[in-house]
């Protein structure tokens, strides 16, 4: 069973994060430099143009008659600069930092402007910044100017950023794909480790970076060692089973020859108990376990057959469920699990109900009895091996107290689970919940009324 893993960024994620960080850093730094350089260049360029425009305008306006000066200023207004002639310089706006740097640039280009008391200021009527200023004409009147275009447009910068991002994003995608590819062997290894013991796991092919290859090789060797250990143990257990069952068979045949019926029955009981113990121990440790293949069976009929057999043995057992329900499963394992639960139920209860219920995701086989149930505190503990609640459920337990542990283990290999709950007023409900495989086709048309399972 997969345990819940705290979400964590995998190696690929980390590598991508590092790449992203460095790329962002690189991008940020280069953008900053580029932006600064370009802005500087724009200003330099603008300063030159402005300087030339101002020099020409000053000459033309100073040369024209005072009455024509306003009209000349208007004529000199281009789509870049607005010019206005005033008798006196309008007072500067409240927040208008002087652009000393730009003034220096203009003066550097046209030193003659220095004599005209050039003033350059930044005004921001809206979001955009404009350069404004004035210069004094020889007759103490002022030529006022203002840039029409905002100094720096934000849109332009955004577009530039996006353009720079495209190669960065493409690089990221390539990097992610490459890293994913590089780490694929690791993911395959994780999947194999997860499946080990549940499904058949082949050797994991060694691939990927050196570290991953070493881990894969180590995993394969470990897998071989575990397999060898398990198969040795299984063979040893099968041998023990054989060696115990042969003397048990002798004992059983000898018991048949005893004339005293009471003694014979007692001895037969002992032999049966020992046989059951050998069976349950082998079932638990896997000594008898075959690599059973999943086949398509009619689960409902299998359950009905078990119920029929219990009825023939004189127990009060009722079946409640569809007549037919097909699914693909390991039949012997499932039958062992169901038999185990029904065996418990008829031992502790007078009346037993076996219900088969299916919903969209699961098939539930619920075995309910009207016996004493299990104290709530022991519901979990009773699933563990070698636990017997003798005081609560009587002392006639057969075997080692492995029954439910075997069921739990068997269901794990089938992908299902066991739930235990007490019934009201008394009794136990043991339910096998099997995931409904995709290929399961219930073909029951006239399904009898299906009562929901009372799991409380």
């Amino acid at each position, binding site marked *: 069973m997969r345990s819940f893993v705290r979400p964590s960024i995998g190696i690929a994620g980390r590598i991508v994060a590092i790449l992203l960080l460095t790329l962002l850093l690189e991008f940020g730094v280069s953008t900053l430099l580029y932006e600064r350089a370009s802005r500087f260049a724009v200003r330099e360029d603008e300063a030159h143009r402005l300087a030339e425009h101002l020099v020409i305008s000053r000459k033309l306006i100073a040369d024209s008659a005072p009455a024509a000066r306003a009209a000349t200023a208007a004529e000199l207004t281009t789509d870049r600069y607005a010019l206005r002639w005033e008798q006196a310089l309008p007072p500067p706006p409240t927040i208008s930092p002087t652009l000393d740097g730009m003034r220096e640039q203009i003066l550097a280009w046209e030193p003659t402007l220095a004599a005209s008391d050039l003033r350059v200021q930044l005004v921001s009527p809206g979001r955009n910044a404009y350069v404004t200023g004035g210069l004094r004409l020889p007759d103490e009147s002022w030529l006022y100017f203002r840039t029409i275009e905002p100094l720096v447009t934000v849109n332009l910068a955004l577009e530039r950023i996006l353009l720079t991002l495209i190669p960065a994003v493409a690089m990221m995608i390539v990097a992610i794909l490459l890293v994913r590819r590089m780490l694929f062997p690791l993911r395959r290894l994780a999947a194999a480790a997860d499946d080990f013991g549940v499904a058949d796991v082949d050797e994991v092919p060694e691939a990927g970076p050196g570290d991953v290859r070493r881990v894969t090789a180590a995993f394969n060797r470990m897998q071989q060692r575990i397999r060898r250990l398990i198969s040795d143990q299984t063979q040893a257990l099968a041998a023990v089973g054989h060696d115990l069952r042969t003397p048990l068979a002798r004992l059983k045949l000898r018991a*048949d020859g005893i004339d005293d019926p009471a003694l014979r029955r007692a001895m037969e009981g002992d032999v049966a108990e020992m046989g059951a113990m050998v069976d349950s121990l082998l079932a638990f440790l896997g000594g008898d376990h075959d690599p059973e293949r999943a086949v398509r069976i009619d689960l409902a009929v299998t359950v*009905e057959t078990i119920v029929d057999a219990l009825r023939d043995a004189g127990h009060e057992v009722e079946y409640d469920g569809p007549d037919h329900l097909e699914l693909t499963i390991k039949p012997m394992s499932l039958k062992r699990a169901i038999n185990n639960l029904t065996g418990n139920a008829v031992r502790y209860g007078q009346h037993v109900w076996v219900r088969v219920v299916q919903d969209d995701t699961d098939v539930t086989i619920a075995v309910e009895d009207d016996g004493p149930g299990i104290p709530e505190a022991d519901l979990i503990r009773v699933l563990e091996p070698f636990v017997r609640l003798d005081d609560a459920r009587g002392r006639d337990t057969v075997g080692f107290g492995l029954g439910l542990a075997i069921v739990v283990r068997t269901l794990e290999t089938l992908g299902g689970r066991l739930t235990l709950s007490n019934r009201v007023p008394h009794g136990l409900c043991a339910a096998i919940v099997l995931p409904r495989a995709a290929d399961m086709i219930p073909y029951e048309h006239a399904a009898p009324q299906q009562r929901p399972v009372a799991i409380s």
Partner: protein
Amino acid sequence: MNAHLDSPESPSSIVLVEDDPALRTLTARALQQNGYIERPACSAPEMWQALEAGPTDLVLLDIMLPGTNGIDLCRALRQKSDVPIIFISAKGSETDRVVGLELGADDYIAKPFGTSELVARVRAVLRRGALDRRHGRPEQGILSFDGWQAILARRELLSPSGAQVELTGAEFDLLISLLDHAGRVIARERLIELSRTRLGDSSDRSVDVLVSRLRRKLSHDGKQAPIVTVRGVGYMLNVAVTRT
């Protein structure tokens, strides 16, 4: 124990192959007490000698003999002879059972077994063998009817949608009896007699109960099972059966 003796026509001779000396002696005694003549063997070579020593009606074979794979021995024996085989296994293994039955063994006994189980199975297999000889029908092949398939060697029933449908030994025997007489009415008494020649537990339930269980299991896709009751007489399977 003589209560189990069911008056066989003449004492059947059984070759018993078992490596454990004490168990061999005890099993032999149980068989003798029930009127069978047995010839013990403790290994594969001894088994071949015992088989040559005289006519044999049945071989009881422990498949876990030292030095030999019981499955291989079973196969070799089946190739040479049609003698009924019951194999004894200390492994509670379903695979062994299926493989053994597929190789042509007639039945299977798991250790530990008691006298009554042993004798019941021996008797059932001997009877079935006699019946097959009379009818000349080996327990092989597949009987198909109405989309269903009964696989004789594995004693399996497959539904029209291909799912294994579990039948008890008695139910399977009853089904085979009905299939053998498809389209003909079989009297209840005759059905009881036919069923009793098979596994020892067959006669425990009434034929009517078995038929009703079989009907329930043979319904499919909303369709009723093809078994009709002929009032006051017996039962009939009313679909065509093909044997492959």
